[in-house]
């Protein structure tokens, strides 16, 4: 939150990928690793499991400690072990990462979470964390604790009813991989308006486009037939920024209901980037916002930059 509108130093960025299982989270983790490497950011992987009812919590803990004696590790740690192996497989040239070994006994419980202690992780900037509880609550706590800049969440975890909570309460930019296909070549669609969040989303869009070589489109939507100076200025500024970095950009100006127009234009072959809402939180809570409605209605991968 405090970093809004300030030029960012990619070296200091921290990204967090939420994984749920080896079966469903492979594309999410792959994209998380890719985006982290694009920004040269440190990368945290968090597994948020279900928390046992408090009534039986101690019985479950007692069982888990007993399972440790039989070398049966917590199901969440299994997912984190898989995540580490996947990260290694995704970066075969990373010698530092290859050295890291997963040991389920080397965990540290702190601040209501379990952190896997990774020896020899100098230079890799990888963090593996296990949490239990409600998804948004736990992600918020993790982001607040570690100061993550971007939370990467799989589409399966993005139940539409969570869209509001994810965007309203996570104090970081959010990347939701809805129906993300790692094999597909997307067009990067940047939603441009006169809000203060647009300039940062332009920077993020440029970095992603440069690294992935995706074509870039900007879309500016006005509710009326007329595009005011603010909208036109923002679109021109975006074009100038992309031009300055040698990235070709197509500009689109459409009129109509902004959210419906975004969603229809995005179709199923765009990768959307938009700025977070600058509306008062109470208004967002009561009436929603463009990013919340867009996230609810679209089925393509979307990054909401804060």
């Amino acid at each position: 939150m405090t970093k809004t509108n300030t030029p960012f130093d990619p070296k200091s960025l921290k990204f967090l990928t939420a994984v749920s299982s080896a079966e469903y989270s492979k594309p999410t983790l792959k994209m998380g690793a890719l985006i982290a490497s694009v920004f040269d950011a440190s990368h945290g992987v968090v597994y948020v499991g279900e928390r046992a009812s408090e009534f039986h919590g101690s019985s479950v803990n007692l069982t888990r400690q007993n399972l440790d004696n039989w070398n049966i590790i917590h199901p969440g740690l299994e997912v984190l072990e898989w995540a580490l192996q996947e990260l290694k497989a995704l970066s075969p040239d990373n010698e530092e990462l290859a050295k890291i070994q997963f040991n389920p006994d080397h965990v540290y419980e702190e601040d209501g979470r379990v952190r896997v202690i990774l020896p020899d992780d100098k230079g890799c900037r990888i963090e593996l964390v296990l949490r239990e509880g409600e998804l948004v609550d736990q992600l918020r706590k993790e982001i607040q604790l570690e100061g993550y800049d971007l939370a990467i969440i799989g589409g399966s975890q993005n139940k539409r009813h969570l869209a509001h909570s994810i965007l309203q309460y996570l104090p970081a930019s959010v990347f939701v991989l809805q129906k993300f296909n790692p094999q597909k070549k997307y067009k990067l669609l940047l939603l441009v308006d006169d809000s203060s969040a647009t300039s940062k989303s332009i920077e993020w869009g440029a970095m992603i486009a440069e690294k992935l070589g995706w074509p870039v489109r900007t879309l500016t939507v006005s509710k009326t037939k007329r595009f005011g100076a603010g909208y036109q200025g923002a679109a021109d500024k975006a074009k100038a920024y992309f031009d300055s970095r040698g990235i070709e950009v197509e500009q689109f100006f459409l009129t109509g209901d902004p959210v419906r127009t975004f969603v229809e234009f995005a179709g199923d072959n765009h990768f959307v980037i938009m700025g977070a809402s600058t509306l008062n939180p109470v208004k967002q809570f009561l009436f929603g916002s463009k990013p919340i409605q867009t996230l609810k209605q679209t089925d393509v991968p979307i990054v909401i930059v804060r």
Partner: protein
Amino acid sequence: MNSYIDILFWIRQKKWLLIALVYGMFMHHVVTPPPDLNPAAFDALIIISMALILIITEPLPLPAIAMFMLFMQVVLGIDSANNVASSFMNDAVFFIMGSLMLAVAIVSQGLDKRLALGIITLTGHKTWRIVAGFTAISAILASFIGEHTVAAMMMPVGLTLVRYAHKDPRKVAGLTAALLFSIAYGATIGSIGTPSGGGRNVIMMNYWAEFGAGSVTYLEWIKYVYPMVLFQIPITVFILLWTFKPEHSNLDSAVRKLVVDVARAGKIKGREWLAIFLFILVFLGWVFLSEDFGLGIIALLGVFLYLSFGLVEWQELNRKTNWGVILLFGAAISIGIQMNQTGAAEWIAHVIITSLGNVIDNPAVLQGSVSVLLTGVMSNILSSSATVAVVGPIVLDLGGDQILIGFATAIASAFGYFTAVAAPACTIIYSSGLVKSKDFLRAGWKMGVLSLVSLLGLSLLWWPLL
């Protein structure tokens, strides 16, 4: 801006606390109590309904809910601080405290490896025999040492077998479910067998004493209820094999690997014999001395012995015991006693009897049906012990034989087969991540029917003979 978001987030996380508070204030300040219900009884009902909202939705830690139930009794003038304090601690709470600590002491001895070897020696390699062995041993052990202790000890055995049967347990989902549910359902059906099988049984015994219904000894409880445990074991095995259809009919290789694994533990050590001996002493104390000393005091004596002989460290007991649950049961029993003393329980019972009297003519059938259905449904939403603590005072005021109604209620509180929250054993197998909520429904409805029929048979055919 951030503080607004923090406030909104707090509201999101605590919405059920706010709803409970608004409901409580509305009921206390706006709603007029029915003419046949005195204000103290009405306030007791408000507290218990607010507590139910908080327990089910968990916006607060359990100890906070316990404290809420206690201070509200004094704040609303239902009773004095000293009386609330004295109703808070009794033998049932001692028993829950003692049994939770005994579970830690027993599980930490590593006896599960001996248990695994014993079961495999008895059952052999065939899958159906292993499922039968798991169900029977879990049921019988849970009758005496409590279902949470048994599930904690049996889970590693079940999971190890599954992993030796296939590297990825999800590929043998039927076998995994059959083995894990044989532990959970075995422990659950066994937990009704003796008073020490579960805290809820002792809570009911405590209510019998409070309501002046008389007392039931440890052996009398076994005489009344154990036939149902024995009857349910084989049918549970059949239900599990029928529902989950294990992929392998023989676990030859998995069993051999397990035997090699547990054989590494070597011969049974003196420390383990001592742990078993001490538990037998506790058990004999429950059987022969509980009428004079109370089950809870004997459980605490057992914990004292385990600590004295150095079989468990206090730090370990302290760390692994759920003190929040103990506080909550103390508070729930305290408000349960207030429901009895203020007449709130009797009023609800009267309302139920009056409302349903036209539907069911026979009072005994009505009392039995209400106690069993109310308890069975609530135990799937709350937890089994909490259900007895809350429902107990009401069903004992329904009329009829309070001892038999109490037995039916305690038994029905073990009918939490449908969800992972009702019984600790169900929560434990669910925490493995290898069984799903729908698995509980698939097997749970069959278990529900079995248990209802068994209870009906027990009450109609067995109890009249005693």
